[in-house]
């Protein structure tokens, strides 16, 4: 048994070290690419999801969102509630917002987008919107009649859906906004981008302006209160703390709030699973073809080995060992490329995709899983051709008859 393994190892190692270098390199590169392809989509997805999460917390919801009670449209006595919440030690700040959909007009262009009515200073405690302004300035407390537009509304600044936007509004321009039948002009004070389509398709005006347009002025109404906590605080603990303050309003963590994102995530997850199956099939076929061609080229050599009495199992094992070696090196190369090449590169230079900006995040468990599957594929992909070929008659193997 041992001497057989020795001969297999011997033959495999000689082929690897002395065989056609081009074929070896080609095979290894193909396997590395297949590995990358197998982990790429889930890495993309992991990267996108990760950004979704940051995005939600940093630009929209904060960590926890308080919403009106069931059956109610508004939170009443919003500022009293804010004070109450801010009394908790882990709370950094709160922002009470009004939120509605509005219609924007600029020159011939028109589009719909979400309009938030905020208190700029409160907002700055909760989100990083101010840092996302790329042209002009963020709102300040006394501002009235001014608006901050996301780049998907303004257009320009690399907007991803340029054609749907207002087509190049600049700071200082005037846009008309229609909300519940009322139209008013607003001066554009700033344009922001978080590089995420969904957040960038919005606009911020002062809460007082929106109250007026909604006809709820001086009522201290809010539609949501976003709560930002100290980094590292568990969202569910925050919720428990809020509940124990006797708050009756609906409290959701950003995770629950991210309903649509969750949906996107699970859709992408499904696509990923399908892609994985297809990817594995393709990988298997490619591995099979590459190894098959490799082995068929060695038909005569197999015949000679068989003729001089080398056992079939030993010959098959030598090819399987080779394939495992190629797969091993391919996986390592692919992994190194992803882990130390592509992933850090995209982290430093995120790629703009319609959902926002994306960087790759390689999940180790996933990578190991793919590596094992690739290994299995290469074993099967080599056993089958090696077995069928060594089964053939010597006449056919040696003299091609």
């Amino acid at each position: 048994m041992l001497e057989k393994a020795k001969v297999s190892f011997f033959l495999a190692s000689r082929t690897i070290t002395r065989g056609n270098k081009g074929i070896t390199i080609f095979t290894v590169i193909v396997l590395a690419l297949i590995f990358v392809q197998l982990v790429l989509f889930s890495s993309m997805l992991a990267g996108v999801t990760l950004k979704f999460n940051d995005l939600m917390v940093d630009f929209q919801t904060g960590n926890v969102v308080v919403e009106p009670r069931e059956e109610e449209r508004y939170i009443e006595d919003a500022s009293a509630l804010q004070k109450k919440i801010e009394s908790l030690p882990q709370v950094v700040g709160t922002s009470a917002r009004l939120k509605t959909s509005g219609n924007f007009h600029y020159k011939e262009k028109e589009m719909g987008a979400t309009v938030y009515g905020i208190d700029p200073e409160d907002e700055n405690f909760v989100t990083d919107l101010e840092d996302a302004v790329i042209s002009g300035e963020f709102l300040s407390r006394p501002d009235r009649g001014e608006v901050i537009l996301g780049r998907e509304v303004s257009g320009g600044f690399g907007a991803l859906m340029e054609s749907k936007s207002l087509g190049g509004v600049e700071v200082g321009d005037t846009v008309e906004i229609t909300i519940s039948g009322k139209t008013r002009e607003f001066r554009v004070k700033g344009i922001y981008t978080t590089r995420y389509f969904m957040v960038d398709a919005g606009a911020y005006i002062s809460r007082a302006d929106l109250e007026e347009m909604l006809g709820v002025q001086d009522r201290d109404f809010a539609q949501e209160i976003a709560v930002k906590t100290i980094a590292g605080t568990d969202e569910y603990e925050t919720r428990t703390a809020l509940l124990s303050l006797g708050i009756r309003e609906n409290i959701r963590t950003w995770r629950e709030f991210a309903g649509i994102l969750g949906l996107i995530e699970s859709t992408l997850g499904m696509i990923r699973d399908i892609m994985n199956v297809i990817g594995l099939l393709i990988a298997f076929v490619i591995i099979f073809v590459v190894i098959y061609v490799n082995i068929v080229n060695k038909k005569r050599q197999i015949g000679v080995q068989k003729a001089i009495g080398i056992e079939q199992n030993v010959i098959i094992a030598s090819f399987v060992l080779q394939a495992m070696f190629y797969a091993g090196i391919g996986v390592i190369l692919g992994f190194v490329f992803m882990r130390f090449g592509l992933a850090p590169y995209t982290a430093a230079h995120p790629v703009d995709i319609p959902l926002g900006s994306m960087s790759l995040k390689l999940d180790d468990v996933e990578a190991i899983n793919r590596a094992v599957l690739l290994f299995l594929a290469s074993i099967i992909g080599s056993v089958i051709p090696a077995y069928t070929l060594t089964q053939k008659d010597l006449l056919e193997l040696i003299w091609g008859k």
Partner: protein
Amino acid sequence: MENKIEREMEKETENKNIEIGTENIEIGTENIEIGTENIEIGTENIETENKNMPDKKEAGTEIVVKALNEKNVDTIIEGIDIVRTFLMGEVEVRVLRGISVKIRRGEFVAIMGPSGSGKTTLLNQLGLLDTPNSGKVIINGADTSLMFDREKGRFRLHNLGYVFQDYALLPELTASENVYISLMMQGKSKAEYESAAAEIMEAVGLGDRLSQLPSKMSGGQQQRVSIARALAHNPIILFADEPCANLDSKNSKEVLDLFKKFNKELGQTIVMVTHEDWHAEYTDRVIRLKDGMLE
């Protein structure tokens, strides 16, 4: 172990065998000797012999040893009524039409005949590289028709050696690796197979080229490596199919001289297919084939 015993036995009988020379070797159906028992059946036909077959049904090495214990064991390969046909599309081509042949221990035999007469096919049957449609090949008393492919493989590994027309060296192995791979497969230790390879490489005049790759060698050198490979495990028979076909006359002569040397000095039995009359002059006897029959 076995091989050594055989070798010694061979040496004892060597001179006698060679003296017996060409005339005394019975070919074909008229004059059949049965290997192990050494019974002269004389002019009886094959059917008679087949009746005797059950006596030698035991397979494999046991018989080899037993055969050696008998006195006057001369026949080392016996082909009995070998028929080999190939299917060419719909047509069945009878390449060997019932060939019976005997080769004695220590003989150097040439198989000759026109192109397409079935020389290679016959050699492949005798060398267990192919299986006849009917008939038997008995090597050293062992009826190979009773062996499974696996056993045949093991038999080839331990008992037979091959030299091919185009050398058929494994390109990724060095000269000595090519030579010792079968010893390695036999389970010999590193020290054993390396020294055996070095020794035989020395004997074929390539003692200084052990670690050279075949691609870096001339045709003549490659063929000598392949002879070394074929002989490294002391096979009981060496088969060579037109070993000089790709070589110029100088290299051909070297190869044939080597064959002659191993034949004379070690009593190596050699069966060689060739086209050239001057090659045949090196041999003890010529088996002529024509249209799948012995001439």
